[in-house]
């Protein structure tokens, strides 16, 4: 059984090698993504363009979302133990699977040979390799329970995290302004205070109003902590599937918000007029809190 499996894998790998050398033109490489995106300051995005498939299996082409967990890491480099990842399977052609991953504000395409065995798709997909954080995804997609499980290993073994594992669920994404922050508890990333032995906590205020649905007034935001304002504003981006580069926001949305799916690194075009207006107001109060909350003055 196993031998057969390996044989098929080898066959397809060689086929793939042939295929690519013959048809370089069909290659679809996404340019490296902009590196320094702060949340809110959303920049240019390159979406992987459509690839023509001759072997479309509509059912599997979807988002697979879940936790991307560190397995091998270097503790001295402050590794992120857990990120939410979206592995999107886009197309398949000649035994080659094409897809892209969205994690930590980074969209990377991948491709590689895939073997279909009963309900399982076994794939080994490589990212282009021109980004510091590129690596190889090895996973099994089970079409029965619609899960995608596997490993990722980085090309550069000196990264903070060089190996991660994941167990993802097939998930559909649709912008839904009614999605609310149900639990707004949780500590602010990297906010540990050695003196008080406490982390800063997000409070209920962060989720009490849905800024994608309700027009905010000054009264709604003037008595809020900066950290809560930040969550309230970034929840708007999260509803649109914004993948956070900013660690503080990522830590909160990746771990505390079940409905959150990272889909894109540029969601500015999708923002509604109401959201844009609210974002402006919240930002004003964030900025004021940042500059004046704890200084001598009003």
């Amino acid at each position, binding site marked *: 059984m196993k031998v057969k499996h390996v044989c098929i894998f080898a066959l397809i790998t060689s086929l793939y090698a042939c295929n690519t050398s013959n048809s370089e033109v069909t290659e679809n490489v996404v340019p490296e993504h902009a590196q320094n995106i702060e949340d809110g300051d959303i920049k240019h995005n390159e979406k992987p363009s459509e690839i023509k498939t001759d072997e479309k299996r509509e059912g599997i082409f979807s988002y697979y979302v879940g936790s991307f967990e560190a397995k091998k890491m270097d503790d001295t480099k402050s590794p992120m133990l857990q990120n939410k990842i979206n592995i999107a399977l886009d197309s398949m052609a000649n035994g080659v699977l094409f897809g892209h991953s969205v994690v930590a504000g980074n969209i990377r395409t991948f491709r590689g040979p895939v073997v279909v065995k009963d309900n399982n798709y076994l794939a080994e997909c490589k990212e282009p390799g021109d980004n510091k954080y590129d690596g190889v995804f090895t996973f099994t997609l089970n079409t029965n329970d619609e899960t995608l499980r596997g490993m990722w290993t980085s090309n550069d073994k000196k990264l903070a995290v060089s190996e991660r594992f994941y167990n993802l669920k097939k998930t559909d994404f649709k912008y839904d302004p009614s999605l609310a922050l149900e639990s707004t508890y949780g500590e602010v990333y990297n906010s540990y205070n050695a003196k008080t032995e406490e982390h800063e906590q997000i409070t209920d205020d962060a989720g009490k109003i849905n800024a994608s649905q309700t027009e905010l007034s000054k009264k709604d935001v003037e*008595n809020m902590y900066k950290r809560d304002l930040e969550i309230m504003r970034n929840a708007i981006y999260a509803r649109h599937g914004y993948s956070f580069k900013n660690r503080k926001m990522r830590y909160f949305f990746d771990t505390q918000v079940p409905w959150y799916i990272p889909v894109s690194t540029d969601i500015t075009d999708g923002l509604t007029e109401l959201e844009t207006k609210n974002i402006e107001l919240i930002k004003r109060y964030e900025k004021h809190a940042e500059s004046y909350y*704890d*200084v001598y*003055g*009003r």
Partner: protein
Amino acid sequence: MMISFSIAKNKVKYSLLVLFCAYTYFLWLMLKITIQYFPVNNDVAFLSIKQDYVGMLHYRIAFFIHVFSAIFVLLAGYSQFSERLRMKRLNLHRLLGWFYVIVTVLLAGPSGLIIGIYANGGLSSRIAFCLLAILWIGFTVLAVIKSIKKQMSSHRAWMIRSFALALSAITLRAWKFILVALFHPKPMDVYQIVAWLGWTLNLVIAELIILNKLRS
């Protein structure tokens, strides 16, 4: 007897020096707050969260009059409570006194009352700031009347009260700084507290000083 007297005198000198330095430091802080708005800027510091009102001409006029005039009344702290100046150069005391009165009663006070109507923090802090402005103007006018009537101890008492309220510019901000550092309250919660704490406690202290002066 002589020795203990001179030690006491030195102590007084020393504490006056400390007071002088501390007061100058706070004036410096106030000056830094004032120059944020110069040249006239409608979207900076405090005004950045007053955008609902900045559009109103009377608010803008009142705000900038308040910001650019109020700092001058604090200068009275250096001169007007000095016994030596009053004894030796009464005319200067009067001149600077009138300057304080005019700035307070015609500029800083009424403009404070107008912006107090639109204060942050709801009805509670609006009442606090308006009451502060009214009492400040009132105490100052009373002090002038007493002075004209040559009722000098009354004049002194009302001026101490007036200046205690003027000092709320410094104490309100100091309370805010302390409360935030200690308890990390929400921004408008602390604002509502200091709107009252910032000047009521000053009045209590003023009364204690007046009582103390009457006794001696």
